[in-house]
């Protein structure tokens, strides 16, 4: 094996690939070969570094230099300057927005300083398509330890002691789930990995599968050993082609190494994994719906009990865990339950991955200990609000969660504190909003999603959410009444109390939390017929200020519906009944004569 002196790690996550990181990788590789350095410098593609805002990322080891927004043509300079002459390319380094100084080492960047990467430990560090790199980072050591030194009951006990809770949204204790499934009697049991990430704005599961697929394979095998299953199924979104490809490569390699298949480590334990594709249905995140989808049916949930741990896939006992949950398992076995339980808050142990997005400076994937405050996440790691605007709200938990405000910023987030604040952990989406976002529209946006994704099986969810959505639409159009507000709240509670599955039980959360925290915005829409953030089209008026209008006709020529009249060099007027509020006039006016009221 060649001992390289230097390593160039190029991010191969979806975000960076969209910014030509693949071409960058090839350019770096060619440049290395051209300079005859291929025995000294290694170039590899890794999984996501998390700092998507500044992608594509290139990291140089051993000096830990972190280059941001690297273009394919920068390859020549990186090799000539950094690799050959040992001088960092300053213009590609991250600039601390506060001090305006260049930061070379990611350890000193605000984005990484407060992070603790357990589930993402290998993402951005190893080549996900090379099993040897995973093994070099203690990969498959946990599986070996379980199979050769521990009984299934001991492993389950360790998982219970660790306090790990399901990261898919529910927060159910993982060890307990394994124990229940292990006690079910059957000739065949199944381990299912839920990789059908449906929350719009969350992409941690995909990043883990793209960046560290072996950790999932290893954890599923450990789970299989514990519950007595020899078959595993990964249920993954068909929209994630790169994750599927990396998972397939990883499965092939682990089979070749004897880490998957028959008689693993010579212990007589067999375990095989199969892949099933999702086809785009948010409700399939619910485990009974997911199982029906795996069976080739419509992904509709069924009443529990029976729980999947008793009767799941093909009516056999089935243990369903989410990708991020599995990613924690090998580390817990290697480092011990006590170590894991020492991290996090009282009832939520370990770390949580969040997909930080929206109106924030540092969009990306972050992992922090449970109990970190929202303030730390948004202002330290996230670098504050974009364009110096004012923070308004943060939405956690996706369509099932709620909007939290300024007053919640110092909550130490974990499963229970978020629920108590009227939101939820969900799968870890975290969307930051600024003063320009209308909270009624945001509630409507989530309801649009729920209405589309409701499977239609139970009426509270199918009909109730539709009615909620219609009422919100009415309010956004300025046609709402005060009675609608009472109805909204009432109906929300009915839907929550009577829906069959988690989708309906949580879908009114965005409505309730925005009503609780931004009641004045609802009132402004209803009473004053105004949208304070200027987002609701129906409540806007584009008006031409006579003083500033020079009669250049630019607005009239660009109006798609000919709503603007006026002579050349004369004052122009917008006919409000024809205006479709597209904003073209505002964009085209060079004299600041068009404004929104």
């Amino acid at each position, binding site marked *: 094996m060649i001992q390289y002196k230097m390593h160039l790690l190029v991010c191969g996550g979806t975000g960076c*690939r969209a910014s030509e990181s693949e071409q960058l990788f090839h350019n770096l590789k060619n440049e290395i070969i051209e300079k005859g350095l291929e025995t000294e410098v290694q170039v590899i593609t890794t999984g996501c570094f998390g700092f998507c805002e500044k992608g594509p990322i290139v990291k140089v080891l051993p000096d830990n230099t972190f280059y941001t927004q690297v273009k394919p043509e920068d390859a020549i300079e990186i090799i000539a300057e950094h690799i050959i002459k040992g001088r960092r390319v300053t213009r590609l380094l991250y600039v601390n927005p506060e001090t305006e100084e260049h930061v070379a080492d990611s350890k000193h960047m605000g984005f990484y300083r407060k992070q603790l990467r357990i589930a993402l430990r290998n993402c951005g560090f190893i080549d996900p398509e090379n099993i040897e790199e995973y093994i070099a980072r203690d990969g498959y050591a946990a599986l070996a330890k379980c199979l050769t030194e521990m009984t299934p009951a001991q492993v389950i006990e360790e998982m219970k002691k660790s306090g790990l809770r399901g990261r898919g949204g529910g927060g159910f204790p993982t060890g307990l789930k394994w124990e229940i499934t292990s006690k079910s009697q059957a000739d065949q049991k199944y381990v299912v990995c839920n990789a059908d990430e449906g929350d719009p*704005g969350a992409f941690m599961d995909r990043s883990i599968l793209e960046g560290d697929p072996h950790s999932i394979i290893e954890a599923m095998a450990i789970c299989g050993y514990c519950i007595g299953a020899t078959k595993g199924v990964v249920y993954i979104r*068909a929209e994630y082609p790169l994750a599927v490809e990396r998972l397939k490569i990883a499965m092939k390699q682990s089979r070749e190494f004897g880490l998957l298949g028959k008689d693993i480590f010579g212990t007589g334990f067999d375990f095989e994994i199969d892949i099933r594709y999702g086809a785009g249905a948010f409700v399939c995140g619910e485990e009974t719906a997911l199982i029906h989808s795996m069976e080739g049916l419509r992904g509709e949930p069924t009443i529990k009990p029976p729980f999947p741990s008793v009767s799941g896939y093909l009516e056999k006992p089935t243990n369903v865990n989410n990708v991020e949950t599995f990613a924690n398992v090998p580390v817990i076995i290697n480092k011990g339950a006590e170590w894991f339980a020492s991290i996090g808050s009282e009832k939520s142990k370990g770390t949580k991955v969040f997909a930080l997005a929206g109106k924030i400076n540092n969009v990306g994937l972050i992992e922090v200990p449970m109990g970190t405050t929202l303030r730390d996440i948004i202002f330290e790691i996230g670098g504050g609000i974009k364009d110096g605007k004012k923070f308004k709200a943060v939405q956690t938990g996706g369509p099932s969660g709620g909007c939290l405000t300024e007053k919640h910023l110092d909550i130490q987030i974990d499963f229970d504190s978020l629920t108590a604040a009227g939101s939820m952990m969900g799968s870890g989406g975290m969307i930051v909003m600024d003063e320009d976002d209308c909270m009624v529209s945001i509630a409507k946006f989530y309801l649009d999603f729920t209405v589309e994704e409701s499977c239609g099986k139970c009426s509270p969810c199918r009909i109730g959410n539709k009615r909620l959505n219609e009422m919100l639409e009415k309010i956004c159009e300025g046609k709402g009444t005060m009675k609608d507000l009472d109805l909204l709240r009432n109906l929300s509670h009915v839907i929550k109390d009577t829906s069959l599955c988690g989708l309906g039980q949580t879908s009114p959360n965005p409505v309730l939390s925005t009503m609780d925290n931004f009641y004045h915005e609802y009132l402004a829409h209803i009473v004053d017929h105004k949208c304070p953030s200027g987002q609701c089209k129906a409540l806007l008026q584009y008006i031409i200020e006579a003083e500033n209008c020079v009669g250049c006709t630019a607005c009239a020529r660009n109006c798609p519906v000919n709503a603007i009249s006026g002579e050349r060099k004369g004052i122009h007027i917008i006919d409000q009944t024809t205006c479709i509020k597209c904003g073209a006039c505002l964009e085209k006016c060079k004299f600041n004569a068009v404004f929104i009221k």
Partner: protein
Amino acid sequence: MANIKISEQKVLQIEAICKEFNNEKGELINVLHRTQSLLGYLPAEVQEIISKNLNCSVAHVYGVVTFYSFFTMIPKGEFPISVCMGTACYVRGAEKVLDEFKRILNVPVGQTTPDGKFSLSCLRCVGACGLAPVVLVGEKVYGRVSPDGVKDIIKEYRQG
């Protein structure tokens, strides 16, 4: 019944896909995935062929096809355009981008232009939230798209 008549050869290919999955009803979703990647869409007559081979009702196949957003009964355009409507893209102005596509192409979401060149759809989060708002044309990702940039994207494909 749909009026499109697919070729004998395509029928054989669909039957081969079903056979590959042992004509098992439980493999319906896998069969549909493979068939859609072969034909680009799943019209009624194709669903009928599949139902015969997997020995289940056409209603069952139709129920599954229409349940999942990935499956479509309308042929996609030569250049399928998808606008990400995930939350991150939404708060960064994806709706205005979508409106601009609708205006320029003059088709609603889920439809294809009469010349068969473009189809317009929405999707939920491609995970490139750092580049929001995001538009996909085929597999190519366009990041930080502004309503103004829409015409340039369309132009790229109209000429090519």
